[in-house]
């Protein structure tokens, strides 16, 4: 199999799974299809000579994000409504808008002269790590501060008590005095 046929197979699989993500009625199925999209994206990174990014994608997304999403679905699921409500009155405008945007972007892509791929070797993780700790050190540190802030924010938002000035019913509903 040539690289091109692998690419088209992966691309078709990505598109089909993405369609499933936005259309399946069961939210758990949608999350699992998103997992398929993310794994296939890692394959796409491999084709684009970015093996380190493929590893990161598998670890962070399929390992972390999908698990988190599944937890989110299960924590917020109610027994009487299993499916996802899709607003059918918004289906037509949504499809029209998305198609219009896709048409505009496809026109722009076809009218642009794009260069062919240069021959490129896969970039090893060593070089990326070196770039992180030399040229992009400040961005790297800012990113770690951002991750810390996101973590603290999630903990503060997610903990049970300290609802502030919300109505009393909240405490009753969540089974707290």
């Amino acid at each position, binding site marked *: 199999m040539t690289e091109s046929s692998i690419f088209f197979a992966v*691309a078709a699989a990505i598109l089909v799974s993405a369609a499933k993500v936005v259309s399946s009625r069961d939210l758990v199925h949608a999350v699992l299809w998103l997992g398929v999209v993310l794994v296939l994206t890692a394959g796409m*990174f491999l084709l*684009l000579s970015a093996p380190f990014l493929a590893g990161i994608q598998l670890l962070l*997304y399929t390992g972390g994000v999908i698990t988190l999403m599944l937890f989110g679905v299960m924590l917020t699921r109610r027994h009487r409504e299993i499916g996802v409500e899709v607003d059918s009155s918004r289906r037509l405008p949504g499809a029209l808008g998305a198609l219009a945007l896709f048409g505009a972007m*496809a026109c722009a892509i076809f009218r642009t002269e794009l260069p062919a791929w240069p021959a490129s070797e896969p970039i090893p993780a060593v070089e*990326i790590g070196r770039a992180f700790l030399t040229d992009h050190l400040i961005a790297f540190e800012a990113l770690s501060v951002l991750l810390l802030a996101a973590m603290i924010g999630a903990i503060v938002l997610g903990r049970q008590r300290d609802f502030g000035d919300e109505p009393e019913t909240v405490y009753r509903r969540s089974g707290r005095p």
Partner: protein
Amino acid sequence: MTMQTLLLLTSALFCMGIYGLVTRRNAIALLLSAELMINAVTINLVAFARLAGGVTGQVFAVFTIALTVAEVVVGLAIVILLFRWRREIAIDSANELRH
């Protein structure tokens, strides 16, 4: 695999994300659609990084991925808070700020 087919693929992915954002009512389904769009953008970034050569593009792709993860964490925390408060996560129902 040319640059054009790759860009077409990512724009199709992005538009599917937009369709999901418009049609879904469940807050977690909205997060999923946003994931789809960000994924398309990351593939684009990596493709152009390969076109430009060098390591910087991939470094910034790592940044995008980490930012997305942070976004998902905070977004899910907000969704769970919304659920704990209102017992449902249909976004139309969260309209307190309008009244």
